[in-house]
């Protein structure tokens, strides 16, 4: 395109506004380029801006109805994922968690059973591989290791598969990953019973890994001879070992 024109430029037939000879300046192009610059700045600096906005908004949005807060970007921080029709709500009174597979003693737990076991509380970030992050979420539940140990895994077991009662979503960890103290079956979040949209009555929370490992609506834990890739690892190009900051194409430090 031509550079900025001067008032002496002959009429060129575009614009048609202003005195004869005023072809005008390419303001449109400058606005577009300016927005591209702002967009690039938003990508590079947006995490800090987004965290700041979320921190300012949290006292307001935490009191607003949950649905309202979720319409505002960064409202309650979480984006809700479900890969089936709606949320597969289950009655906490009838919900059961099964531990089976390569174990000596399969077991079934009620919510009350989990609440009677030694409890673990973690305050950790929830980081999605696509970029969004909720800082400092309070999680409460029992360690996965405690549940596995109670069923005495067979020596041939090297991995754990998790099933959601949505009937579709699965995830997995190696037995060593599952033994970490920051991997829990959580039934409380932010001081409240885990809601349907966050995967209640209970979900997995794998603190050192991206969110897709933290299987929601957990109903079954199966000890397996080898790692079986989960839902997003089969559907999309997601790493099975999903360490935050050390997988999925990057080995830079985790945000926050």
């Amino acid at each position, binding site marked *: 395109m031509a550079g900025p024109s001067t008032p002496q430029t002959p009429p060129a037939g575009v614009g048609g506004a202003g005195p004869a000879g005023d072809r005008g300046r390419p303001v449109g192009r400058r606005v577009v*380029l300016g*927005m591209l610059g702002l967009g690039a700045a938003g990508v590079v600096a947006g995490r800090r801006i987004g965290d700041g906005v979320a921190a300012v908004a949290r006292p307001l949005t935490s009191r607003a109805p949950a649905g309202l807060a979720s319409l505002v970007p960064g409202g309650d921080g979480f984006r*809700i994922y479900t890969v089936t029709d*709606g949320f597969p709500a289950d009655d906490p009174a009838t919900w059961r968690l099964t531990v089976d597979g390569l174990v000596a003693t399969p077991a079934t737990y009620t919510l009350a059973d989990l609440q009677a076991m030694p409890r673990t509380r973690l305050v950790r970030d929830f980081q999605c591989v696509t970029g969004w992050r909720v800082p400092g979420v309070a999680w409460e539940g029992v360690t996965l290791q405690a549940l596995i140990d109670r069923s005495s895994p067979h020596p041939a077991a090297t991995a754990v598969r998790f099933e959601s009662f949505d009937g579709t979503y699965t995830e997995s960890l190696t037995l060593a990953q599952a033994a970490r103290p920051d991997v829990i079956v959580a039934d409380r979040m932010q001081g409240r019973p885990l809601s349907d949209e966050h995967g209640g009555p209970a979900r997995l929370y794998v603190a050192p890994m991206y969110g897709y490992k933290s299987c929601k609506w957990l109903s079954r834990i199966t000890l397996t001879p080898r790692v079986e890739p989960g839902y997003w690892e089969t559907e999309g190009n997601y790493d099975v070992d999903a360490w935050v900051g050390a997988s999925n194409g990057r080995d830079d430090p985790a945000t926050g």
Partner: protein
Amino acid sequence: MTTPPPAEPGGPAALTRFDRAERVAHWVTAGLVVTLAATGAALSSGTLMALVGRRRAVELVHLAAGLALPLPVLVGLAGRGLRADLGRLNRWSSDDVAWLRAALHAAAERRRRHAGLVVGKFNAGQKLNAAFTAGAGLVMLGTGVIMYWFHPWPLAWRSGATTTHDWLALAVVVVAAGHVRFALRDPEALRSMRTGRIGRDWAARHAPGWLAEQPRPGEAATAQPAAAEPAAAEP
């Protein structure tokens, strides 16, 4: 051929405001934007996700519509009408700047300040809307690509892309709603995006600088409007 019958709104002396390529590009883009807004709302709102579910399918529809977004305009560039109009939208006269400043004032003062300013085929508000929409579309496309094909990008960039995508989406919805509101308040202008034709009276009220470029009604029968436009610059 887009030549309307004499009964067409605007009468036989009506002007061609948008040619067929521009109209098709407009409506296909509009359909894509509505699809993107609906699927994007479901992806970012837990309340809507609860109603819709099937995140993977919603993601793929959103992705396809987003990647297709530039295509109608790129294809439309093959037509002379869209190229000429993009040139008009890009160029701002000093009157355009004055017009936009005046638009910030209350109605009476705005009318006083607008008097005497030459408005061409597009006023400065339409030019600003076009530039914003083009820039926003490109930024949404770029940030969306980072969010979907996340592997090459640092985690902080993925977060920044998400934040930028979210907030710009809100701005786009607000601006697009304003665009629709203006269209609904001016049925003749809205109809011209369907039929391509607009009356000389309308042009005299809203785009006098453009009307002055047009051949007079007597000449219109012999000159093809699209071909005559670029040559008719003398006010």
